[in-house]
């Protein structure tokens, strides 16, 4: 039985912090993930100003230079500093990931809690639709939608959201079902509270934390798929820097300048691992057995 959360509890937070702190892997992941977000934010706010080099200026004299002290990751085929371009891509990937995950969580929250709470026909319909969306391989669905709408970052967000909302709907519904049977909710119902009120005031606050944990894990996954979209030409468009796009631009220079395509791909790897490790640690935070150990 899940403990019903009715307010933010200082002691619960302390336990959460203790759990996160206990694993150095989780901490490392969390630090990198946080670092990524901080970089993304700073680059975005400063409008690329804080980057060592200008990300768009073409300088034909210094193309395809190997990594050096001046250019930490070398230069690309148009003479642009790769390290700066990789950093510049951070806000773009962050924006897409947060938008997609955010929309998916909100949609999933609404649909899932309604499905779980109301049940019956409504639940059937919502869950069948979810099943259909889940039958598509994620990348393929995003690819189809993105190619129909046309390549752009905004269209990518529109294309990726339908890939993610079904899982959140399922999750929200499952959580709703388990919260629904608890006494607090039964009491509210007995008193005659309206359905909308019960869902908003009781159900949703209790299922949000779990959803957010999975959302954190998914940020890395969205970046992975978005980078593939950009790699094949459907996401970010040149000259906008994006890790997948950078890799595909560098593909032809794989042998002559391997750092060019590989560095941005490694950037994706690092960020994805970080979010995954941190997400695993977060999952422990939700596990009541683990919480018991740390209280």
């Amino acid at each position, binding site marked *: 039985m899940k403990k019903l959360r009715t307010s933010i509890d200082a002691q619960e937070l302390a336990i959460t912090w203790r759990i996160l702190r206990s694993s150095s892997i989780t901490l490392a992941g969390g630090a990198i993930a946080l670092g990524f977000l901080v970089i993304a934010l700073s680059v975005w706010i400063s409008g690329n100003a804080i980057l060592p080099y200008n990300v768009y200026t073409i300088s034909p004299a210094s193309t395809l230079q190997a990594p050096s002290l001046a250019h930490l990751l070398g230069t690309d085929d148009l003479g642009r500093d790769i390290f700066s371009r990789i950093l510049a891509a951070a806000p773009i990937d962050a924006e897409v990931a947060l938008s997609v995950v955010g929309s998916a969580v909100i949609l999933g929250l609404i649909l899932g809690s309604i499905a779980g709470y109301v049940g019956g026909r409504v639940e059937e319909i919502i869950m*069948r*639709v979810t*099943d*259909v*969306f889940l*039958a*598509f*391989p*994620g*990348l*393929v*669905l995003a*690819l*189809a*939608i993105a*190619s*129909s*709408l*046309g390549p752009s970052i905004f269209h990518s967000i529109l294309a990726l959201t339908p890939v993610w909302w079904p899982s959140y709907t399922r999750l929200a519904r499952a959580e709703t079902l388990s919260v629904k049977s608890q006494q607090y909710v039964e009491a509210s119902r007995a008193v005659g509270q309206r359905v909308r009120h019960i869902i908003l005031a009781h159900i949703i606050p209790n299922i949000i934390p779990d959803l957010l944990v999975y959302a954190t894990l998914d940020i*890395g996954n969205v970046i*992975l798929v978005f*980078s*593939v979209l950009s*790699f*094949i*030409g*459907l996401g970010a468009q040149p000259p906008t820097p994006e*890790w*997948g796009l950078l*890799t*595909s631009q560098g*593909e032809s220079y*794989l*042998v002559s300048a*391997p750092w060019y*395509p*590989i560095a941005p*791909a*490694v950037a*994706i*790897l690092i960020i*994805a*691992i970080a979010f*995954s*490790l941190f997400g695993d640690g977060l999952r422990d935070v939700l596990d009541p057995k683990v919480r018991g150990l740390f209280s």
Partner: protein
Amino acid sequence: MGFVTYIIKRFLLLIPILLGVTFITYVISRVTVPNVARAWAGPRAGPQALAALSARYHLNDPVYIQYFYYMKDLVTGDWGISPTTGRPVLYDLKIFFPATVELAIAAVIITIIIGIPTGILAAIYHNKKIDHSIRFLYLAGFSSPPFLVGLVMLLLFAYIFKIFPTEGELSSSLAPPLRITGMFIVDSLLTGNWVDLRDSLWHIILPATALALTYFGVVTRITRSSMLEVLQKDFIRASYAKGLSKRSVIYKHAVRNAMIPTTTVLGLLLGALLSGTIVIETIFLWPGIGYYAVLSIESLNFPSVMGVTILFTISVILANLLADLLYAVIDPRITV
């Protein structure tokens, strides 16, 4: 319940899913796409061609009529005409599909070869260093964008060490084997064409391994967790009590039981692999439908992209069905 009844039941469950899936592809193809006629006719079509196309696909008719004709076309094999080649999309797909099937099968085999033993090892040495290393390795694989592993392997083994060829299914100096299935390895085997067989095997290793290294975690993870679960069960203890050796208990009893949930993951695995082939085929210039899809995207060939989408999705759905049937075969509790 009986095996046959189970199969029939599973097939029937497919129908609503297929209907739903085709409805969504319909919406993507004809409803949400801006300028439907242009998208289907291609960027170079003139006004006459556009008009003809609109008439043919009933683009100006109300939605329900349009949908009816869409479904009819789908079922009868008219998946549109590719503006770039002028041929029916389905025809193009038939040419490119076998190569992807071959690559996917090779990747599944390598994934299982890597995934199952690592999963068993990780479970037996639960929480020891081996377990942690294995988990980190597959996490790294999973978190890699599919192009990373592919590019690195290509660089190292094809260009630097020159062990494997850098692209394609077959060396350009050789003639392809007689086309029976379209899969070079299978066809070479069937026609006794040993030169082509060796050559095509050599070509498939790098892309298939790149795929496997990226996605083997799917198999490792479930093998590990189901082994851990099985090792806790009573009958394992009872088997030890009978006097069976540790090897017998683990490999005869534990593994066999642990493999059952592993089959459920086959559908998931194939879905991931197929998504990965889109990228891998592009990197290795492997002439499958992933490569075809990327080419189509570049040339704004919308009908082809939708054709690939439908084909991919149906393949994954069928793979899931196959996994369910396999599960029923392995686990006697389901049907006996």
